[in-house]
């Protein structure tokens, strides 16, 4: 039972990092990205590479993953951020499909449909391995708190203010001499980089990764978790993550047959989204 609680806790925190990293991009600046799971996937495969191939310990590995994710995000962001509205969504969707396809089909490098197994547990210092659920839980908790704190600070910093201001009136910000394009690129890069943290935790915890974990559905679920929170507040997004992770567990306890549980779970999410948009759209409206 304790093991189960630790497991749920770790998965929940991975999701919290995913959602918190996407919050500034999706909820605050209203750039709806359907490619968040692609970054999650790239980070996970890079984790496998640096942890297995190079044998890096926790901090260098995390930095390497974040750096790769940030560079991919930067390369994608320069052209994509010029696109508006639906076209931005479409371009991120394209990115999602291309990354998934490469992870799935480039068998020589990614292992294709077999996935990658045997990813070692993180080493905090060379020789000091995080072993056992409680230790991993503690490490994840510390990292999650740090990430959430950073994003909280960022949202209420000067930069966060810029983001909100240009969402509300881009012409005004341009008139004030701000480079709105760069601000958007920064948000995108920061989001991609911190998703890498979630990837690292996920890959080293599971020790096995498969492309199916990083498909469009995963992207949609990240988007939903961010949206279900429903406000600009960071804690709303965290609650969204909790809902996404805990609802399937509740359904399991409600004794819904295994083969139906997945569908019932998703139907509830779908309905929640529709109801949320119809009845609570005021809180989602840009002010």
């Amino acid at each position: 039972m304790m093991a189960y609680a630790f497991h749920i806790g770790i998965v929940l925190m991975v999701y919290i990092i995913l959602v918190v990293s996407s919050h500034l991009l999706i909820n605050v600046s209203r750039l709806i990205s359907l490619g968040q799971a692609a970054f999650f996937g790239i980070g996970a495969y890079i984790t496998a590479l640096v942890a297995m191939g190079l044998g890096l310990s926790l901090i260098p590995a995390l930095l390497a993953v974040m750096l790769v994710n940030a560079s991919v995000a930067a390369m994608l962001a320069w052209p994509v951020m010029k696109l508006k509205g639906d076209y931005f969504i479409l371009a991120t969707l394209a990115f999602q499909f291309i990354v998934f396809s490469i992870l799935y089909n480039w068998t020589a490098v990614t292992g294709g449909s077999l996935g990658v197994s045997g990813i070692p547990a993180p080493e905090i210092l060379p020789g000091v391995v995080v072993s056992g659920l409680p230790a991993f839980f503690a490490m994840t908790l510390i990292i999650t708190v740090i990430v959430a704190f950073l994003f909280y600070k960022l949202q209420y910093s000067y930069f966060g203010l810029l983001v909100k201001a240009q969402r509300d009136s881009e012409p005004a910000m341009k008139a004030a001499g701000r480079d709105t394009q760069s601000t958007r690129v920064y948000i995108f890069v920061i989001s991609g980089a911190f998703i890498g943290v979630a990837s690292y935790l996920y890959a080293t915890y599971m020790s096995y990764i498969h492309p199916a974990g990083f498909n469009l559905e995963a992207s949609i679920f990240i988007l939903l978790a961010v949206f279900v929170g429903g406000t600009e507040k960071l804690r709303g997004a965290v609650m969204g993550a909790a809902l996404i992770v805990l609802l399937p567990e509740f359904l399991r306890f409600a004794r819904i047959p295994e083969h139906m549980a997945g569908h019932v779970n998703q139907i509830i999410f779908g309905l929640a989204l529709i109801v949320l948009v119809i009845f609570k759209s005021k809180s989602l409206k840009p002010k």
Partner: protein
Amino acid sequence: MLWDYLQNGLVNGSTITIMALGFALVYNTFRVFHIAYAGLFTLAAYTFLFLTANFHLSVAVAMILSIIPVALLSWLIDFVVYNPVSRKGNDPNLLMIASVGVFIVITNLLGLVFGNQPRIIPESLRTSWMDIRLMIFFIQTLLIIVFAIFLKSTVTGLMLRAVRDEPRLSMNLGIPAARMRSLVFILSGTLVAVAGSLQCLDVGVNPYSGLPLFISAFIAMVIGGVGRYEGAVLGGFLLGLIQSFTEYFTGSQWVVVITFVVLLVFLFIRPEGIIPEKQRGV
């Protein structure tokens, strides 16, 4: 060999075109990013499967009957979700989120009822006096032509285009806006019902089979030119052929990648599409 792929490309192109037209009808007129449309496609395919496998109806009857629930649901989605949300003057992105919700509900309900395994219709129905894929191509091309004539040459078609171009002005001129709105969703449901049924006849169906085609259809609309129905037709057939030849040259696993690379190339180099929307004079 190459001929087979050309034929394949044309058949897929006609399916993508029908989907793109139905989607463009909604998207051009109301700017609703109608992802639930992919769910309607799957619903049509399952309705067709249900009618042929359980009631042993003929292909033609089953196809026509499957239009009814799909067109009805299409209208209902607008009535319950899109119309109320858009009337409050919300961010259009919100409509897309709601549409994702509807899509998830439809897909998973179908999965609950019919199971996740791919299903095909009984083999006895697949025999006909002509090649089935050729028949699909002809039916869909005919439908495209009928749709074009409807839009260009009938009063109702003219009204639809008027609502698309000048929503407020056309209301002032006495075009019944609410009725036009219903008509758009029913027509779009009809188009997708035909595409879904025929796709089921051809290759069968699973709960997730709508999404890849929907994405192809949207991409076809973008590369053809948003705002113009000719664009959707051109883009649809072009994309069908590109996908088919990609399969011929590189194998089927890279079709998705090439499709999206084509999309990205268009987004960055020619975002207005092959046939750009007419700029109205001031």
